[in-house]
């Protein structure tokens, strides 16, 4: 009997149209994803890791398949009124239940599995780089299927199936599917899942929780592979062990439990009837009224009353419906957790920002769009088809209410939904602000949300209504509109990137505190009119073909459309047409004609053309800057600036120079090089070729001048020149002296497609201070920068003179010594604070509303100046200028010679008022000020190992100065961050990891491991000795203009101050890739007779070396490592009073037992508490006693 039932299930489900549709959909999806070629550097596209990665993420989509099959399995009897027939047969409950469940599970799995097949096709039959495709291994695809796909589908099936069985309600089933999905995303955000791009790498504790709690196994997968190198990702299969094993086991057991529970609860043979408790009717005295007909009114007031009654009804029914409640709750939850995690529990380093309105808004706008669209897609159909779904349309359609009233009530109801989300989001933000005693609400900024996000959502609603008016059924309407939404969000894929064709594309309105919305162009406004115009036209058509009475087909609707045009309708229609075409033309003009619209293909064509024509000039010897004199006039109001440049170029080669090739960045006027002739000027590519009649001899110089004007055309956005907060660097306008290889096409596939030769990648230092060439050197610099009368302009150099003229402010700066050419020009409405400290002028330029941390910053500057001058030599300038720049810059800060730019929300808005949390303001300030030494005073050769001198030393200075200011607890936080940055960066980098002294552009080494190693060095030889090394090198290079310091020299100096027996260790740290695994195995203490305590500790220590192949080998260990005993956790140690013991112990075995005597009762013991070794697992380094 059971077999027969199962057979029937298979037969029935196979006939569902949705089954092949789903199967094909997922097959196509698999092909698409497989072809994408998304994998981090060095990882093969078809590596086990990638297959797991993609497959597990897409099993999330299987929830919707399961929902469909669960409903068709368990609800079909009720839906098609077969219950009385089925239940009166002799079918057994267990047969019924299990056959239906197996049907659901089986078909869901069958519908989803084509994804993997598609993926395989996508991998092998596409244009992917064959070098990153490993050989075909069946296990690569089979293992994820067994470990992820089948279990996930099983787990989801049980949940959705159970909901379906118990509630016998299809809406509840849909909701449970959506709920699982959304719950998943919420918990990912909450638990710092790597699926969500978080700035903060997740702590091991939360990773472990996520790994177990994630029913899809994705977090468990990430937990196991988080530190895998590219090599491992390519070769290793996932091991069915550890948290991954537990996760699968636990969830399958839970699912079986759910199933059994459902089976128990399932009341078979009870045709479900909702029995509601009858409210006790009061006996009331009622006057009997006889029915009397009453004439109705049909004027405007009547229609208006009808409108409101309809609207009220629509809204009420939405509010009472489960999907809406679920979405609203999810939304509120996400808003809450986003706000909480950023504003209260802190971001990077555990520090949060002051709750400025724009900061809060930024956090909620992404989920806002997604949730609003979910509501619109679902409810547009629900609302439009409400009457027909309830079969009430026969009655409603016969009432004397005009189509327009029905239509507008539904439209209003639909539009109210996203408005509700926006409003509730705003209220949440305000509640947070009030809770934090911040009352500067900036209501107009909140109100702008309705405009910037509301417009798009309103247009989507209009389109939804249009689609549903024409569709023949509810699900067709929902489906088509859903498709339109997805296409519009992914329009780039179809080549429809132009703003006018990209339905739903609206430029993100960026807002920052300094500049407001000003830097956003009027593109948004024009597009808003354009899309609203279109929306109204569609609305118009919809209402004219509104389904009333029996649904008619398209041809009839078209006929309906052509008839009955009242004058007002004609006028409205024409008006909308005009708006639509007018705004569209304006946008087109500005985008295509004024700004030279370029598709990405156009850009590639340009690059190809440039390379083909001018690569021959790459080998041309180029002259070098020795001096710069500029006149920069900034016009913030007009978003424009002009530059007059007067440079000296020198021939540093050994041959005479007869040609100079120049590529412009901004179009130049009047370019002249001494008495060279301009022989070729290509206006399309922006290149100039000069020839010297008398060649420029070696060591000779020539004068080079140019003028340029940079202004915005059309809808250009340019964050360097804004109404308030302009920040213009030379790299924004400086013409490139020579051939710019950066303009070449980098993608290997693209180059192959166009027949370009393979590209040899040159190393380019990407450190803080970016230089163009090894032969660059320090130059002399002078500038006159001017700006509007209500702003202050800043640049590098001592301020010689400032004056006002013609309603503009002028500033004359000149560098007293030669500086690195990394100069910028600032202009804003600054508030200033100037203090003279030991002969140095500390100048702060900041926005008048951002005065929270000014004292803090100044204090840190003083500490840094003191420490660095004392230990590394005199400060190179007579001033330190710190200037605020708007938050649209993606970095924290940048050190120019003598001038530091700091981004508003990374420094000025950080809330460090709480003494206990890490002072990130101090950290950043110290870092940037120290760059005046590390980079500007000591300038390293920009080759491998160069960024050690720049970033490595800056991080080291952070550590030592912060320790002086705040105690050892600062080191804990700092090194924790550095270690995690190292490990996560290293696992995502595909190339071979270089050793520290050969670091190139690996940020995880220069900002991560470099710190660790420097602190290890400090522990080994003492801070004084380290500083001597640094000072020696600095003194040596201080007055040399050429950039010559390198890491070999550094090592040589280190050896000089280190005992010979430690040289091997230093070699290991700097010249090899060494990692550790340290931990406290166990520890105990006992009180001794004399009142002291003896602490016994078993320490485990392992050391590993990563070879060039990526393989990690264990090696021997024999070095002094710090062990610390404390009365508080090392992360909150302020001063020595909490430190009972902190000494180096020689560790040379895998397991060592150490006995320590301390004076007080010990609370914590730790090995290497302050991060001097790169240790993946930090949890076992500290235990409490």
């Amino acid at each position, binding site marked *: 009997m059971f077999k027969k039932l199962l057979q029937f299930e298979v037969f029935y489900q196979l006939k569902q149209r949705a089954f092949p549709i789903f199967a094909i959909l997922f097959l196509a999806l698999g092909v698409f994803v497989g072809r994408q070629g998304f994998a981090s550097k060095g990882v093969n596209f078809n590596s086990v890791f990638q297959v797991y990665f993609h497959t597990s993420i897409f099993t999330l989509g299987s929830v919707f398949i399961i929902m469909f099959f669960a409903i068709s399995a368990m609800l079909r009897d009720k839906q098609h009124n077969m219950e009385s027939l089925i239940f009166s047969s002799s079918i057994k409950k267990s047969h019924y239940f299990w056959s239906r469940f197996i049907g659901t599970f089986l078909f869901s799995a069958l519908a989803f599995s084509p994804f993997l097949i598609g993926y395989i096709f996508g991998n092998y039959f596409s244009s992917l780089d064959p070098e990153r495709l490993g050989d075909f291994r069946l296990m690569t695809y089979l293992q994820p299927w067994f470990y992820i796909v089948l279990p996930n589908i099983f787990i989801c099936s049980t949940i959705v199936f159970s909901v379906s069985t118990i509630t016998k309600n299809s809406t509840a089933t849909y909701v449970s599917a959506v709920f699982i999905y959304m719950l998943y995303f919420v918990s990912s955000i909450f638990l710092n899942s790597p699926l969500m791009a978080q700035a903060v790498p997740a702590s091991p504790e939360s990773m472990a929780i996520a790994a177990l709690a994630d029913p899809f196994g994705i977090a468990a997968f990430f937990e196991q592979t988080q530190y895998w190198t590219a090599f491992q990702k390519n070769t290793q299969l996932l091991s069915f062990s550890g948290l991954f094993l537990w996760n699968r086991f636990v969830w399958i057991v839970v699912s079986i439990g759910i199933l059994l529970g459902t089976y128990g609860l399932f009341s078979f043979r009870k045709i479900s009837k909702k029995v509601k408790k009858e409210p006790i009717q009061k006996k009331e005295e009622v006057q009997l009224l006889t029915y009397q007909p009453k004439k109705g009114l049909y004027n405007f007031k009547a229609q208006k009353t009808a409108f409101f009654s309809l609207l009220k009804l629509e809204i009420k029914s939405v509010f009472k419906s489960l999907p809406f409640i679920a979405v609203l709750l999810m939304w509120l939850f996400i808003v809450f957790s986003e706000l909480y995690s950023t504003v209260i529990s802190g971001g990077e380093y555990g520090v949060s920002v002051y709750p400025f309105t724009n900061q809060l808004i930024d956090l909620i706008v992404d989920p806002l769009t997604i949730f609003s669209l979910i509501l619109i897609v679902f409810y547009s159909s629900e609302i439009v088809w409400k009457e027909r779904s309830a079969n009430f349309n026969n*009655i409603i359609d016969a009432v004397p209410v005009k189509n327009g009233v029905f239509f507008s009530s539904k439209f209003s109801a639909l539009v109210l939904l996203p408005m509700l989300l926006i409003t509730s989001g705003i209220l949440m933000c305000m509640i947070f602000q009030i809770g934090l005693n911040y009352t500067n609400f900036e209501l107009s900024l909140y109100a702008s949300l309705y405009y910037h996000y509301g417009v798009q959502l309103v247009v989507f609603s209009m389109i939804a209504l249009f689609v549903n008016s024409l569709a023949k059924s509810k699900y067709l309407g929902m489906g088509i509109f859903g498709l339109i939404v997805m296409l519009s969000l992914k329009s780039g894929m179809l080549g429809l990137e132009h703003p006018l064709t990209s339905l739903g594309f609206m430029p993100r309105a960026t807002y920052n505190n300094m500049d407001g919305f000003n830097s956003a162009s009027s593109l948004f406004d024009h597009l808003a009119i354009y899309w609203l115009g279109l929306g109204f036209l569609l609305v118009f058509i919809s209402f004219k073909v509104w389904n009333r009475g029996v649904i008619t087909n398209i041809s009839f609707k078209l006929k309906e459309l052509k008839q009955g045009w009242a004058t007002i309708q004609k006028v409205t229609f024409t008006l909308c047409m005009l708006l639509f075409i007018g705004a569209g033309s304006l946008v087109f003009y500005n985008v295509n004609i004024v700004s030279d619209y370029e598709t990405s293909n156009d850009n590639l064509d340009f690059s190809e053309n440039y390379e083909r024509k001018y690569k021959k000039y790459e080998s041309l010897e180029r002259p070098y800057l020795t001096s710069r004199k500029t006149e920069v006039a900034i016009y913030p109001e007009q978003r424009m600036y002009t530059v007059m440049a007067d440079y000296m170029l020198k021939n540093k080669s050994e041959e005479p120079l007869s040609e100079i090739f120049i590529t412009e960045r901004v179009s130049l006027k009047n370019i002249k090089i001494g008495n060279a002739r301009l022989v070729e000027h290509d206006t399309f590519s922006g290149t100039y070729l000069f020839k010297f009649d008398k060649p420029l001899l070696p060591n000779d110089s020539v004068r080079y001048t140019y003028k340029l004007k940079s202004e915005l055309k059309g809808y250009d956005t340019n964050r360097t020149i804004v109404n308030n907060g302009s920040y213009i660097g030379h790299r924004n306008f400086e013409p490139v002296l020579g051939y710019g290889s950066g303009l070449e096409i980098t993608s290997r596939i693209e180059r192959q497609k166009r027949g370009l030769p393979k590209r040899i990648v040159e190393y380019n230092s990407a450190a803080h201070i970016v230089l163009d060439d090894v032969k660059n050197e320090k130059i002399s610099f002078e500038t006159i920068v001017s700006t509007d009368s209500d702003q202050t302009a800043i640049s590098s150099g001592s301020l010689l003179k400032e004056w006002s003229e013609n309603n503009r402010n002028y500033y004359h700066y000149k560098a007293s010594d030669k500086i690195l050419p990394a100069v910028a020009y600032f202009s804003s409405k600054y508030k200033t604070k100037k203090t003279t400290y030991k002969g140095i002028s500390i100048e702060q330029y900041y926005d008048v509303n951002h005065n929270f941390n000014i004292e803090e910053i100044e204090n840190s500057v003083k500490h840094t100046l003191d420490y660095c001058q004392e230990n590394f030599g005199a400060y190179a300038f007579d001033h330190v200028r710190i200037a605020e720049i708007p938050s649209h810059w993606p970095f924290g800060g940048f050190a120019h010679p003598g001038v530091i730019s700091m981004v508003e929300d990374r420094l000025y808005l950080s809330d460090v008022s709480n003494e206990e949390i890490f002072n990130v303001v101090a950290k950043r300030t110290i870092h940037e000020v120290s760059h005046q030494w590390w980079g500007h005073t000591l300038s390293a050769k920009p080759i491998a190992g160069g960024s050690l001198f720049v970033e490595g030393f800056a991080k080291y200075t952070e550590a030592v100065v912060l320790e002086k200011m705040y105690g050892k607890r600062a080191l804990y936080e700092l090194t924790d961050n550095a270690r995690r940055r190292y490990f996560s960066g290293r696992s995502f980098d595909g190339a071979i990891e270089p050793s520290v002294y050969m670091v190139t552009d690996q940020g995880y080494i220069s900002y991560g491991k470099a710190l660790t190693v420097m602190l290890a060095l400090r522990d080994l030889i003492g801070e004084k000795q380290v500083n001597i090394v640094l000072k020696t090198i600095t003194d040596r290079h201080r007055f040399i203009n050429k950039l010559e310091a390198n890491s070999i020299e550094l090592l040589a100096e280190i050896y000089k101050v280190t005992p010979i027996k430690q040289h091997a260790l230093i070699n290991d740290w700097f010249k090899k890739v060494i990692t550790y695994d340290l931990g406290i195995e166990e520890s105990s203490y006992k009180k001794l007779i004399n009142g002291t305590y003896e602490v016994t500790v078993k320490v485990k220590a392992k050391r590993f070396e990563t070879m060039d192949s990526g393989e990690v080998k264990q090696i021997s260990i024999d070095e002094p490592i710090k062990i610390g005993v404390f009365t508080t956790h090392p992360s909150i140690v302020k001063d020595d009073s909490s430190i009972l013991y902190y000494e180096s112990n020689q560790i040379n075995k895998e397991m060592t037992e150490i006995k320590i005597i301390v004076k007080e009762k010990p609370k914590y013991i730790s090995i290497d508490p302050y991060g001097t070794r790169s240790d993946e697992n930090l949890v076992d380094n500290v235990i409490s006693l």
Partner: protein
Amino acid sequence: MNVLEIKNLSKIYPNGVKALDGINLKITNGMFGLLGANGAGKSSLMRTIASLQEPTLGSISFNDIDVVKQPHEIRKQLGYLPQEFGVYPKISAEKLLNHLAILKGIIDRKDRKNQVTALLQQVNLYQHRKKAVYTFSGGMRQRFGIAQALLANPKLIIVDEPTAGLDPEESNRFLNLLSEIGENVIVILSTHIVEDVRDLCPKMAILYNGKIITQGNPSELVATINGRIWSKIIPKKDIDVYKKAFDVISTKLVSGETQIRVLSETKPETGFEIIAPNLEDFYFATLFNQTCKKSLSYV
């Protein structure tokens, strides 16, 4: 005096099926009964008159208003009870009726409350007014439908199979109410229950395969077959024999025995009794003639 004129009305579906075929009717105040089998086209006709469906050919005018061209005007005067309908979930009878009253143009709150109360009392739903309509039994829902059809001031009331699901008492109440109202307005009662038409309607028509095959006053129509209806009790096994021999218009079971009625000018054979025909006989006779393609000229 209200007048509904239907001229040459046809509804032809794209696949060629003729739901309505050249219907001509003129209806004035009072109850008008429309009889027909299931699938004859009654609901289609009702829907078309109620402005919910556009005809392919022909016209309908109510008091000189063209229903097809000006549906909005017709709706102002219309009360329509469809053959089947559902309701919105989670809304009480009172609230829903109130909402419909607004939609039908009763703006004044007091007037509305009065009419809603009166109607709910009239259809005996007053004590259930706070319950969700969705939870009503079939009969209760039908009564609700009746109530809404009477909202405002309808001059043209169309009720399609209104007594379906009502028990005899409820049915009675309703029909009495209808006939009271029907004195000054047009009420079109579309049904397959012959007794209702016989009891209430001074005029009627029979719809068969989309065509009106006969119309007129029920008594007069019945009179046309006076003296031509014969009845006999026969054994069950002989039914087919008799059907072949005579024009058997109906076969009934009376006290467990089979009674046939035959249409014939003269006594068919021994054992047959002449009986006074009723409307049901007329109905069966008419349908029988249709199926045999014999024409009876009764217009």
